[in-house]
């Protein structure tokens, strides 16, 4: 006898001769948009058979608290990423200062020009 009346109502032994084998539904990457106008941000994954079911589970799992404007789900196998060992391909990005607005400083040049030409 369990303390839980719901468990006592189940016929637990009914399924005891069943065979358990592993079978996997595919996973979906979930993106959560907090507010209209904000970017959807990766929140986690769900297991589901169809996109509709993935959205339903994503709503339960990632939109239970706080604000939500929308959710996206993308099948994990449809996401392409770089290999994390190739991180160095991004290394030169911060070095390309010619793309940085702070790189462009003309005030000194203007002042030198003004001094020279007595402006």
């Amino acid at each position, binding site marked *: 006898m369990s303390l839980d009346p719901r468990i006592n109502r189940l016929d637990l032994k009914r399924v005891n001769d069943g065979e358990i084998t592993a079978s996997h539904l*595919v996973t979906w990457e979930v993106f959560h948009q907090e507010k209209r106008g904000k970017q959807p941000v990766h929140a986690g994954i769900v297991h589901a*058979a169809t996109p509709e079911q993935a959205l339903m589970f994503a709503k339960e*799992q990632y939109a*239970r608290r706080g604000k939500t404007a929308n959710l996206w789900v993308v099948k994990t*196998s449809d996401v392409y990423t770089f290999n994390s060992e190739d991180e160095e391909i991004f290394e030169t990005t911060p070095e390309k200062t010619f793309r940085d607005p702070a790189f462009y400083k003309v005030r000194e040049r203007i002042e030198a020009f003004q001094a020279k030409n007595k402006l």
Partner: protein
Amino acid sequence: MYGNTSLTAEEAKIVNSTVEDPEKLAEFEARITRGEKIEPGDWMPDQYRKQLIRMIEQHAHSEIVGALPEGTWITRAPNFRRKLALIAKVQDEVGHGQLLYSAAETLGKTREQMLMDLLSGKSKYSNVFNYPANTWADIAVIGFLVDGAAIVNQVINSKGSYGPYCRALERICYEESFHLKQGHDNFVYLATGTKVQRDMLQEALNRWYRPLLHFFGPSDRDSQHSEKLMKWKVKLASNDDMRNQFLDQYVPKILELGLTLPDPELRRGDDGIWVFGDPDWDEFKRVISGDGPCNAERLEVRRYSELAHRWVREALMNPKEKYVTPLA
């Protein structure tokens, strides 16, 4: 909710003796020392991966099994507000299980394999869930103190080195703070209620005192250590440190209500270290190896859910789809 993940002597020996590629290992350890997180696609020592899977998996099992003792009282909550809160909390616990299974999956073990290992007894869950919730006051004690203990553990673990586990824990801790507050509210209402309510709470407290001391696992004197797991930020605090932090935070909150704890030796030492009577570690060992009041029922219910509803999943399966490990 969550419990302890002590190593067996055998496991500690394997962790401590496995040799890895020294160059990659040095790079990996330097990364952790710098406070960087490790992500699923990164190189990691074999033992790092194995111990994390074991730990996160146990944590996940604890969440879904932990929903069972509390679920017992959903149909008999004393009023509608308490019932709504309890339903929401139990749903959270199952949701936490899913978040944690996802984090463990990124390391290469599938959710289905983990669920099967739970049913076969190959992997464990927190010992505290092998005890019954006899009365509504047990729900107050679980919601306040078992969740309180779990939060101590989870906040510490969220500072670990594995990115997906830390992210799952941050979300979990955020939700657990509601569990703790509603548990405390329930606890205080009973403690400040009628004599019958107070007595019921005191009895529940007496029942849960030992399992709560067991919660963080055996004393550091009697448990296996691995310097490597500390260095790799898989384990971040010792069992005794966590237990002490829990007693420090929660004993005053119990005593301020005029309740007592069934341990004449319990006191806070001048050095801030709590002293307590022997909580019967033999009982702990007995229960963890399967001989607790509810072990059989918990696994039977889980097995029933798995088998009775399996046809739904099979009907949904698309044989052309190929399972791949989740990304983050």
